[in-house]
């Protein structure tokens, strides 16, 4: 079973929820945490995993053999991503724009394009105590995120998987959510939190994924998020109050359930509510 922890707005506490939930569940069942926020992976800062395996994520990008290229421009015409242009009388590839679809190679009449692997990032895996751990790290300066997210998910081995999603509602989030059995949407009681929660709800509804809300920093700000959830029939699975001590624990890369053992029961109860909300 895959449960994704997502949010429209960044910084609402996705990683906090994901790592504490994984830690608590791991006390009684095999659990893996997949950090799919490959632009800014943070789960490792809390779980301090031993990473003993690493592999590179690559896509195939064309290279031009200049002696063969006749400059006919068919490759540039075929490319939907503007990653090839003909300059002078030869094709020129902009590899950072290439999605690796292979379309250009198919249309080249001179066999002047050869595909070479280009690195986008790395996948690292290992464990943190009883929690199996996988994360992706996009190389800095690389715009193409989705293949790295897919590569993280390919490492899934356990029956119970917690996915830490990136913020937002666009393609990297879709890549994370696809195939999930449930989405925990983390938000905060502010107008920003509400606005972005609505967008996230729109997305999970379109994807047909059952969902519920964790309200973080509860007590700070407004009641609007709770009113919205009530009105839309979205369950509030857990409230985490704003507490300077919690902020300090998170700031230092520690787990709430370690510093405040009372919270183990709260995260366990969160899991029960998720189970209750699954499609049967």
């Amino acid at each position: 079973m895959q449960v994704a922890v997502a949010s429209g707005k960044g910084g609402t506490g996705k990683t906090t929820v994901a790592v504490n939930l994984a830690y608590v569940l791991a006390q009684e069942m095999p659990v893996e945490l997949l950090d799919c926020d490959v632009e800014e992976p943070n789960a490792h800062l809390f779980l301090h995993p031993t990473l003993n395996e690493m592999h590179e994520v690559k896509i195939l990008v064309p290279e031009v053999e200049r002696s063969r290229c006749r400059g006919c421009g068919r490759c540039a015409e075929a490319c939907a991503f503007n990653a090839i242009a003909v300059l002078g009388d030869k094709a020129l590839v902009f590899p950072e724009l290439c999605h690796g679809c292979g379309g250009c190679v198919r249309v080249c009449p001179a066999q002047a394009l050869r595909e070479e692997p280009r690195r986008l990032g790395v996948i690292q895996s290992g464990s943190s105590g009883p929690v199996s751990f996988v994360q992706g790290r996009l190389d800095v300066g690389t715009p193409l995120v989705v293949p790295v997210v897919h590569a993280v998910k390919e490492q899934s081995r356990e029956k119970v998987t917690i996915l830490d999603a990136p913020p937002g509602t666009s393609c990297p989030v879709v890549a994370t959510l696809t195939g999930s059995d449930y989405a925990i949407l983390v938000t905060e009681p502010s107008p920003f939190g509400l606005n972005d929660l609505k967008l996230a709800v729109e997305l999970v509804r379109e994807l047909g994924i059952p969902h519920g809300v964790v309200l973080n920093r509860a007590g700070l700000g407004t009641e609007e998020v709770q009113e919205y959830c009530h009105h839309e029939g979205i369950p509030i699975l857990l409230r985490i109050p704003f507490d300077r001590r919690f902020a300090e624990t998170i700031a230092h890369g520690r787990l709430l359930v370690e510093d405040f053992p009372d919270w183990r029961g709260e995260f366990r109860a969160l899991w029960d509510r998720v189970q209750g909300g699954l499609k049967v």
Partner: protein
Amino acid sequence: MKQLLILSGKGGTGKTTVAGAFAALASDKVLADCDVDAADLHLILAPERVETHDFSALPKAKIDPVLCSGGGMCAEVCRFGGAQREAEGKYRIDQFVCEGCRVCVSVCPSGAISLPDRLAGQWFISTTRFGSLVHARLKPGEENSGKLVAQVRKAATELAEKEGKNLIIIDGPPGIGCPVIASLTGVDLVLAVTEPTVAGQHDLERLLKLSRHFNIDLQVVINKWDLAPGASDAIERYADREGTTVIGRIPFDAGLVEATAAGLPSVEGRRGPGAEAIVSLWEKVSHRLGV
């Protein structure tokens, strides 16, 4: 014309709070919200829309089930796993997976695949009491390839030229991928809003590498610095080592939270310690920009 971009790497550190306050403090500027998939700046600027434009994304492949002969060439050539066999032996393209590369279109022997135009979002020009704002809304689930970000920046630049403004203040997206890179190219200064947490510093480090990669000046402000003074000092030492500067520290201030809740820039009305810190931050940022 100068362009200031507010980024953070990590989400939720206070980009929009700072951008909204700068909107109220700066004169002669155009505002742009480049966080197009979770745009929030409009919530504190109360914009009135003057222009609405449709944004078309890269078309995605669609199979006409009547024409599909079930040969499966599309599935063979698709490197993204977008073509799936249905129960009746026909194929279907998963719209959430398709990247719009058109390779399947070129190989289908029955001519069953087309690329219909698709509305992926909208962008707007609005007026606010602090000046013009260019903002956008990407439909949830769409590809944030940076094209909508580029469109918002282009419109903001044209507007600034037309209005004779010498500054564009850009509220940026989180992360370091496509939309961030599209926001970053060609700006004069990045203000990185971080927080004194292990995640805040980790993400700042990746953001600083990115700005170096594109050779763009980056200065740091630490938000809620007093929630962990030791971690704030560590960020300051890190910045020193890396040859950049922490040019401001904003304390945790419930007044900032309340201003946002009320939908107002935090520097309007009675100014608490958080708002005062943002005012002095703006003095330093505007000095560095030379505006």
